């Protein structure tokens, strides 16, 4: 799906836990998530921690959309 969106010239960032899989299927901009069943918020942590993590990683994804890249790129997250 990510390839078809990008093929149309719409920049797309894939947020995924299995980054190697995202690379293989051809995503160009990637941001890691923390797990498969809960990509953006670990239920064993507090609501506040989950929100901070989700807000941060979605922010990284948005910044990725504004970043000029030359090759497939995984963007770094801090939390």
């Amino acid at each position, binding site marked *: 799906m990510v390839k078809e969106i990008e093929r149309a010239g719409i*920049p797309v960032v894939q947020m995924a836990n299995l980054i190697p899989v995202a690379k293989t*299927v051809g995503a160009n901009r990637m941001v890691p998530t923390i797990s*498969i069943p809960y990509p953006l918020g670990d239920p064993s942590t507090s609501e506040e921690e989950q929100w901070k993590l989700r807000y941060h990683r979605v922010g990284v994804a948005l910044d990725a959309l504004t970043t000029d890249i030359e090759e497939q790129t995984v963007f770094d997250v801090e939390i």
Partner: protein
Amino acid sequence: MSKAIVYLNQFFGQIGGEDVADHEPEIRDKKVGAAMLYDQLLDADVTHTIICGDNFVGSKEEEAIDRILGFLEDKEFDIFFAGPAFQAGRYGNACGAIGKAVKEEFDVPVISSMNEENPGVDMYKKDIYIFPGGQSAAKMKDDVTKMVEFGNKILNGEKLLPAEEEGYFIRGIRHQYFLPDETPAYERAIDMLLKKINNEEYVSELPIPELDTVKIADPIEDLSKITVALVTSGGIVPIDNPDRIQSASATRWGKYYIDDVDQLQNRRQEAFKTIHAGYDPAAADTDPNRVVPVDAMRKYEEVGKIGKLYKYFYSTVGTGTTQGEAARMGQEITEELLEDGVQAVILTST
């Protein structure tokens, strides 16, 4: 008698389903589940079964590998089997990652099996032997038989043929090899050239792998002026699943109106849930924003980082979904996004 060790995920290692996909790696000094089938067919004893949850490998790959290599340090074995993983993407990823590490550390043959649609094939076919397998566990016996037949050839020291003849996915490794009829390379090259000139079919001896990459789209200059859409393969839908999107091998997608909400309400609030059959739904059902982060996007809209969050999010299920179907659904969704002037997308996958 030679010795073999088999790697299985939590399901085929008889621990359980998605609810225990975080199961930590363990080794047992006996044959568990599918390992018994290997033992029956193989010219070797299966001495141990290694079991690990697919999500554990997915999220903590390095730790999984370290611990499994640690289990194997003091074991004697001549061959290693992983899978079969059928069309299960996470299991294929696990078989490949573990198999590759075992091959590198202990230099024993490692054999796996995956359906050609499994992303693990492209990721790891260069590193280990991967045989083309069925879509589901109904093909267990066939797939294991193929793996074992090849394994027995290796164990018995038989001459191994090129990938096309043995049947595994081409690894792209070149061996010095003399054709049975001893036609030298220069004659074959001239034959090929003549065929090419005459527009006849010929088969290259050095195929260049096709890489279907997409041109990187230009970055957005100013997000605060544009509309950004959320798309997911995590199966988040309204609780009555109005588009009847399948829980696996999906061929349908849906779009759901979110213009009037600050976040996705959950299953208990009779709003959104996941129908994805490939992961434990508990966390997504309790808070669907963990998969489709409407709440965070709304906040970024409020602070002016993005112009607007698109009024619908798009959803389908990405487990067992063929690449062909995924491409078609992607095209259909893209068409709508273009029509409505969406200029950037965040796609979340599980």
